[in-house]
């Protein structure tokens, strides 16, 4: 069923919205930019930051476009003097109430507050800078929290409760002393946090950051490649960021859609150090007799040895005296080739894998 269309005007442009859409959604669909901060798609619109304010004709004050549903005939303006000045006020307040020293911030270059400051052309805040003076939470190896940079947008709280539904984070206190975190002001490591890192992924500023990526590369120096997680059967789509051939960090990406819609778990996000671990096998190893030690050999020597041995065993014991285990960890292409090798080259159907275990 086609939903009813609602006609309205945004910045002088006649547009149509779906009934129930917010002004923000409608503007975005029509290519009209409204800045946001606390808004995060597919979570509750809380209207906390008011960065997204717009003018609506005949409304008594500016309205938060992320929360306001469209109505027929509405006349919306997103770029008036009043809107800009309100936005500036908000952003300057946010800036001055935190420790936003971009020089040492990991989010530098990917920070939504920084972008807002730049976009609104603010030279410096008109208020005195007064960070709250929280201690940096640095007692686990995965997630670092510096709440002096927190803008209280609540995205982490909603990510934890509404996206991952781990129900760890909440606001403690309200108003100027508000703070986000696990219950009883505990650190992540002493809470029921399961280190999925969704909060880290949604945080618009440098308040929650990827610990291992610290000082490992600036956002603009990293290249990213999309792939599929190697751990469980969900097959999460993820971005792997590298710099100079080294893996720096992993992130989910909502643009990739199914199956994980941008979410990851602790293994996918923080469990990838193994890839470039020094223990990795790097050379073929061979022992020609059972009582010898394994010794490094060339590929040619290793494969020749195997081929001769297999041929000899097949000759004396028949093809069925040879068996092979394919792998639930290898690709489809490799599993296909493996069973083809066992069946067409060796001549046996003795091929299985550890699916049952």
């Amino acid at each position, binding site marked *: 069923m086609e939903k009813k269309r609602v006609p309205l005007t945004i910045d002088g442009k006649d547009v149509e919205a779906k009934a129930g859409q917010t002004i923000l959604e409608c503007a975005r669909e029509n290519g009209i930019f409204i800045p946001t901060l606390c808004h995060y798609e597919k979570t509750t619109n809380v209207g906390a930051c008011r960065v997204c304010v717009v003018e609506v004709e005949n409304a008594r004050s500016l309205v938060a476009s992320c929360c306001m549903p469209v109505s027929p005939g509405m006349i919306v303006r997103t770029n008036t003097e009043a809107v800009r000045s309100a936005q500036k006020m908000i952003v300057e307040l946010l800036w001055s109430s935190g420790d936003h020293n971009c020089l040492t911030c990991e989010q530098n270059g990917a920070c939504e507050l920084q972008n807002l400051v730049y976009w609104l052309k603010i030279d410096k805040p008109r208020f005195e800078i007064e960070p709250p003076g929280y201690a940096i939470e640095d007692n*686990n*190896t995965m997630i670092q929290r510096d709440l002096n940079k927190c803008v209280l947008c609540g995205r982490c709280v909603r990510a934890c409760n509404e*996206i*991952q539904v781990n129900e760890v984070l909440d606001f403690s206190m309200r108003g100027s002393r508000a703070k986000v975190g696990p219950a009883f002001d505990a650190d992540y490591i002493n809470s029921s946090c399961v*280190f999925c890192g969704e909060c880290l992924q949604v945080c618009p500023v440098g308040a929650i950051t990827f610990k*291992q990526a610290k000082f490992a590369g600036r956002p603009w120096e990293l290249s990213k490649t*999309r*792939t599929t997680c*190697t*751990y*469980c*059967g*969900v*097959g999460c789509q993820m971005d792997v960021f590298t710099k100079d051939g*080294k893996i720096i960090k992993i992130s989910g990406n909502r643009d990739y859609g199914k199956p994980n819609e941008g979410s990851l778990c*602790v*293994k996918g996000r923080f*469990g990838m150090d*193994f890839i470039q*671990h020094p*223990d990795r*096998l*790097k*050379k*073929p*190893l*061979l*022992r020609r007799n059972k009582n010898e030690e394994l010794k490094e050999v060339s*590929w040619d020597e290793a*494969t020749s*040895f*195997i081929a001769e*041995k*297999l*041929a000899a*065993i097949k000759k004396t014991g028949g093809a*069925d005296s040879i*068996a*092979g285990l*394919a*792998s*639930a*960890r*290898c*690709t*489809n*292409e*490799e599993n296909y080739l*493996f069973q083809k*090798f066992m*069946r067409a*080259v060796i*001549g046996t*159907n*003795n*091929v*299985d*894998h550890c699916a*049952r*275990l």
Partner: protein
Amino acid sequence: MTNSIEELEYTDLILATGTNTTENHPVISSFVKRGVRQQGVKLIVIDPREIDLVKYADIWLCQKPGTDVAVFNGLMNVIISEDLYAKDYVAERTENFDALKETVAKYTPEYVEKISGVPAENLKKAARMYAQANRASIIYAMGITQHITGTDNVKSIANLSMLCGNIGIEGGGVNPLRGQNNVQGACDMGGLPNVYPAYQQVATEDARKKFEAAWGSKLSAKPGLTLMEMMAAAGKGDVKALYIMGENPLLSDPDLKHVEKELRNLDLLVVQDIFPTETTQLADVVLPAASFAEKEGTFTNTERRVQRVRKIVDAPGEAKTDWEIISALSAKMGYPMQYASAKEIFDEVIKVTPSYAGMTYERLEKEGLQWPCPTSDHPGTKFLHKDRFSRGLGLFHAIEYIPPAEWPDKEYPLFLSTGRVLYHYHTGTMTTRAEGPSERCPESLVEINPLDAEKLGISDGQMVKLTSRRGSVQAKAQITQKSVPGTIFMNFHFAEAAVNLLTNPALDPVGKIPELKVCAVKLEAA
């Protein structure tokens, strides 16, 4: 899975059994939890441990380990006797209902309570809840399959689902959650002793002819050995050479002592892996393989979605991708395999795999496709069995309850169940080398209920010794409500405390899956 992950968020009811979803499939658990908290989805948990999902459940049936068939029969008993089953569906789409009805008749809630310990009233409540839901999805994992009755358990789940008309509808289905990333793909590609790719039987002549033509080689009509049978055959000297690609059976198999002896008995053991493992230590040849981050290819996830894997970094040292290694070996054996890339292999795969026939790397670029996807304009299949089952009518199996192979007794008074924990994966070769997960979970723990701990005089963090008829291991105790009294749990990720020295290799006669989820043990201070 017959159905898709996304459906879990908007179905009407989910029955989760034998799956500790929040730890083993965390992102799927978010779909379940969002459904429950935000969409009014009802949740029934049937599990012998108080797993995290219980917190989100409307009702939790805590059965004794290995009594699943009795519980499912009990649920069906209530549903049939209270006339709550989907009569039209059963009449039109299924057969053998009468046999099922007859068998479950004796599994009254009271009788099932005696076997399973599940209170009759709770069983009735759960049965009604399941039957009354418009669409209900069942999710399960190794907690269902790793039993001597694993095949029976799976069939029972299918019975229950069909009985209420839940197979072949959106939001319904029987949905095994695959533990390893590409178990689905390894099966689809014919990494099984009895089938070629897409489950075409090696024993049928048509299929064999087709593959003989495709591969230009004479093929054997005799189904091969399963993993556990291979090991036994190695022990007896019938199998003399074993080629293992990326697996570590020496930590994942039950009754490790035996497996080690069997592997030592081989003339040739070739292991291809990314790390040295317990198994590579026994190998005659160890081949260094590239990890998933160092190659192109595809994985197939638990909802049958084929997705691209992409090369991110170079493999270390001389390590090569598994497909390059196989090709090189094959050439040495006089059968050259000339592929320039993984894509060329995939192009061959789709020619012989009807369910993948419509896929190409180009189509998979943006979003994966779910098989069956038979043609290049087919959108893929969100849920299976829409209008008919693969065999035509859905077949009910009348199944009697059989107790697990081992039941606690005087000497070994506790149930032991095994599985994974959130922070680790399988035999731990990858996650124990990741700093974060290892920090959260540095060692194997024996999870034990406070009541049992008190009875045995065990305190939290104390070293304990676990002994079964097959061996013993030591690890620290963790006192937790997750374990119910009488049942302890241990993960199998760590070589230092390999729980599979204890587990029972008794096999399911059909699925050939060992009973890793139930054995009898005793516990004492170490």
